[in-house]
């Protein structure tokens, strides 16, 4: 969900906006957002989605919070990827009498796609490992059933580990469970990152300029 929004924001920043003070200010803002501790996003999610928008501590609120968390990462990666597209491509397309929007859609975006995807997937894998944002907005320590879409509590791997390791009465006995959960989480993150690497190397091979 953060992906289209982030890409649109990046397109605006690099392709449309007049490069001036305002754009620079937005960029600084985006970059500092990327550096904000995730717990702050968690509290924001709690305050905004759970309480203010009245979504409750369910999947939707958690997902939106994680989306906002990785938005700066995606904007940053997309911007870099868009800037990496040679200006000559844009000129060539525009000189043929193709509109700016179609030029971006048909030439610039496809060329920037590997970079955008890689950055975004890395962002997603970061979101997968975050505990703080979802602990306030969606996660519960344990449910016996699979969650219903959108409005339900959900178990999340990182939060599960956190609770197992700190809050139980039998911490020692649950050790194997903790390790198991961590293994699944690490494998998941690694898998997502691997996908990013594969996409980049596969798509990177096709383009040479």
């Amino acid at each position: 969900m953060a992906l289209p929004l982030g890409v649109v924001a990046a397109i605006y920043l690099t392709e449309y906006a007049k490069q001036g003070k305002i754009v620079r200010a937005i960029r600084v803002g985006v970059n500092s957002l990327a550096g904000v501790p995730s717990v702050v996003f968690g509290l924001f999610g709690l305050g905004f989605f759970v309480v203010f928008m009245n979504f409750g501590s369910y999947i939707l609120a958690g997902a939106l919070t994680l989306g906002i968390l990785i938005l700066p990462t995606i904007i940053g990666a997309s911007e870099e990827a868009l800037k990496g597209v040679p200006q000559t491509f844009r000129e060539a397309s525009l000189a043929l009498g193709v509109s700016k929007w179609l030029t971006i859609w048909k030439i610039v975006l496809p060329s920037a796609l590997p970079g955008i995807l890689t950055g975004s997937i890395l962002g997603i894998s970061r979101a997968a490992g975050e505990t703080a944002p979802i602990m306030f907005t969606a996660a519960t320590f344990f449910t016996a059933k699979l969650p219903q879409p959108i409005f339900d509590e959900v178990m999340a791997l990182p939060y599960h580990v956190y609770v197992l390791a700190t809050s139980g009465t039998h911490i020692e006995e649950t050790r194997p469970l903790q390790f198991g959960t961590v293994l699944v989480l690490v494998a998941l993150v690694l898998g997502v990152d691997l996908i990013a690497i594969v996409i980049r190397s596969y798509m990177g091979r096709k383009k040479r300029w």
Partner: protein
Amino acid sequence: MENAPSDTEIIKTKNIDFYYGTFKALTDITMTFEKNKVTALIGPSGCGKSTLLRLLNRMNDLIDGARVEGEVLFEGMNIYDPEVDPVEIRRRIGMVFQKPNPFPKSIFNNITYGPRLTSTANKSALEALAEQSLKQAVLWEEAKDILGRSAMILSGGQQQRLCIARALAMKPDVLLMDEPTSALDPISTAKIEELIDELKKTYTIIIVTHNMQQAARISDKTGFFYIGKLIEYNATEKIFTNPDVKQTEDYITGRFG
């Protein structure tokens, strides 16, 4: 209509001043480009000849801080009129750049890229158009068996002819060429020059070149620019044998520039 063009002129600039920010790159350029002729723009680096060329199809719009004063009349219509769509202008006035810049797509998709996005041509029409454009650009024999392969495998000279074919596929009236051979070897250059000679039957060509021999070989009229001013604009033969202005003579004989 007061600006009605005569039969032979296609583009006319009227008192053009052009600024990059506060830097004035062109001063009071008034010149007429004739239909089905090759017009060469020559002059030392930074004299504004490329700027003028890019101004004729509004490619300078893309540069932040660029500003134009004066009029560019294309078939009697001022292309800098606020109501004119630059996209439409660029369809009718094509451009070939200094460095070959094919898209990282197949040869076929490179040529049909423009028509596909701007018209409703079907597949067979596109194929016919691709063949016609490639033949016009004298690339058909070399490319007909590899249309589906990436344009990046072509040599520099072939890529440049592909770019010309790509521009021709839009069926423009005018073709602007910005030093189209400066990145190419002599053989490719000769091929492109032959091509230009052939193309002027159908198109009006305006070419910027650093190479004075090239201007002398291929153009009908030549404009000499120096520091943002049009110094002399005359028939090519006259410019190269008996120019009116001393500065032109000095440049052509290599005394400066």
